[in-house]
């Protein structure tokens, strides 16, 4: 069903049209929509709106906290630059993994998808360390002030999405190892990579708003 050829049928219908019919001359070829890609794009749109809401809530509360610590006192830039580098480079490795699978190079796929998961895990480890430091040393809890409220909510929901991405990749590893997904049907890998790119893109905005603007 998904590979229907609309062009052919509209062309056939067009051949029967009367010369004077209103519709002649304004036919256009409609794009064909792939099921998986369309569904994923819709899902990612909702994710984008969800994160926009959280980021907006963070942004309007910048500088509104009644007590400290402020973002400037609490957040450490070197650590987060390191974790961001991990996360952003993992977008490249997952592209490589997808390409590897498409070309039938399973070794490359496993190595690069494994590295993507590792980089994601490093990001999460960095975030965990950051949170531990914030809670134990800087005494910032979600209820401490508005900064804590919005920071933990925003970064926490993002970290949750990173975790989900790593789980999705673990499933991909398993199904490719079983041979259920291969060079012939690599679309699932592509769709997970779309999700991963969104998680990365959202992080770029979070980084800018939380670690640059509000700091």
């Amino acid at each position: 069903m998904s590979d229907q050829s609309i062009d052919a049928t509209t062309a056939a219908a067009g051949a029967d049209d009367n010369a004077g019919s209103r519709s002649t001359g304004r036919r256009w070829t409609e794009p064909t929509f792939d099921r998986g890609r369309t569904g994923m794009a819709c899902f990612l749109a909702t994710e984008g709106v969800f994160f926009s809401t959280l980021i907006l809530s963070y942004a309007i509360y910048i500088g509104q906290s009644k007590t400290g610590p402020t973002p400037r006192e609490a957040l450490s830039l070197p650590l987060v630059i390191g974790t961001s580098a991990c996360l952003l480079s993992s977008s490249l490795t997952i592209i490589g993994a997808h390409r590897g699978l498409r070309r039938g190079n399973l070794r490359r796929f496993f190595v690069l998808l494994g590295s993507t998961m590792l980089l994601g895990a490093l990001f999460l480890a960095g975030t965990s360390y950051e949170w531990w430091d914030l809670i134990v040393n800087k005494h910032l809890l979600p209820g401490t002030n508005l900064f804590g409220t919005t920071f933990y909510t925003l970064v926490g929901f993002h970290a949750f999405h990173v975790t989900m991405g790593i789980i999705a990749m673990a499933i991909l590893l398993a199904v490719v190892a079983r041979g259920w997904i291969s060079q012939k049907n690599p679309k699932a890998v592509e769709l997970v990579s779309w999700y991963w790119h969104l998680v990365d893109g959202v992080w770029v905005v979070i980084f800018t708003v939380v670690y640059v603007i509000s700091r």
Partner: protein
Amino acid sequence: MSAAEPSIEAADSSYPTLLTWLSTVDHKRIGILYLVASLWFFIQGGIESLVIRAQLWAPRAELVSPEVYNQVYTMHGTTMIFLVVMPMLLGFGNYMLPLMIGARDMAFPRLNALSFWLFFLGGSLLYFSFLTGHAPDVGWFAYAPLTSKAFSRNLGTDYWILGLLVSGIGTVGAGVNLITTTLSMRAPGMTIGKMPLFVWMLLFNAGLILFAFPPLTAAQAMLLLDRNIGTHFFEAQHGGMALLWQHLFWFFGHPEVYIMVLPAFGMVSEIVPVFSRKVIFGYESVAAATVAIAFISMGVWAHHMFAVGMSRWLDMFFSGASFLIAVPTGIKIFNWIATMYGGKLWFATPMLFVTGFIAMFVIGGLTGIILATVPVDLQVTDSYFVVAHFHYVLFGGSMFAIMGAFYYWYPKMTGRMMSERLGRWHFVLMMIGFNLAFFPMHIAGVLGMPRRVYTYSPGAGWTIWNQLSTAGAFVLLVAFVLFFVNLIMSYWRGRVAGNDPWDAWTLEWATTSPPASYNFEQIPIVRSRRPLWDLKHPEDPDWKHE
């Protein structure tokens, strides 16, 4: 088409058991599950409305306690919006959309089942709160700071959040599915410009779901954190803003209004042409008006918030945008009336409800314009005038269209017609009861009666208007009892419908009633907006004229 009348059993020979219904991924069964579940919630929401009306029958009445009254109106609003109107529209969408576009199922059948069960789980979770003794009591829009732990100490608000979070995720899943199905599963030849208008409306409805629900989900997550781990999103004493909740809620809430009415417009756009025996007047303008409504509806949310005192410029912007949205809506009204004009009108029950829809919706639309005018809104905000307005839109609008859709598509879903006689009684009583219940609310509102009020004093001058409303509510009860009797009895006793009892033109009527699990033996090839007309009239097909 003149083959022997098909028997109902011929379509599906497998014996349905409970397990096949619980585990089904067939869009038609899921559609029916949606409808049955939403009718179940409709009974509960209806009973709640009767409790409200009974309590307001006399001044200083104490039929229920104020605490229970708060729970009842909160649950009435939440139920009717999230668990009745929306899932009913999704149910018809689920059942009809693949049939109308000539597909064998939705794009993601398992996601479809998941969406339904999430909705049902969320609704059940919400109603479970009654068993704990603490149903939500903060109003359907749950304004901060009333929802904070300090003012709402029991678990009712948490049930409200979690129930709607869960069912909201299901709704988003349904939105993803509707868009993907519409875009990627159409039969050969069914271009975007040949889709039935119900499909058009569902497509943009689903788009609104994708953009409107995530802000609500995020806001509810924030509220859950505020209440349970001590964050301060909406708590003023720590610098948080109660107003943020209002913005986020209505950013969802106003598109939600159109989520609940666009598919109803679609139903009307299907039923009016069939019962006027004419093609829809201005197909393109109906579709374009849908697009315009969808876009403008994302920019009108703060007209719910004039009373909080925003800047004058914001008031002007949101007021102007709200006036603007009346234009595409008005275009549709003209399209439907122009379709009827000069048509060979056939007032079967679906058409009765649809004409009722047009009349009632116009009244609701006009009071909407009144309310979008800032100075007037400031006078009647949060009064029964507002209650009257949105019931004319949601009940007089969406509910009338949905009732029309039940009578229109029941034969397709079950293979049997609903009783016309009972249907006419249902329509007449519903029309009388509806206007009796809701028109006096305009007057009570202008006289100053606030909404959600538990009771009122005898000297306020509201007694007669409340008694008329209560009388109307019980007329509506009779009307809906007739509807349920009709719905159940016709399943066994109704006249066998055949494939195409209304002599309609869209593809769902091209297959058996009820359709086989695979919908179509052969995927139809579409060449016009009325593919079934082309099949029935090979000597004068539509594609020669379109």
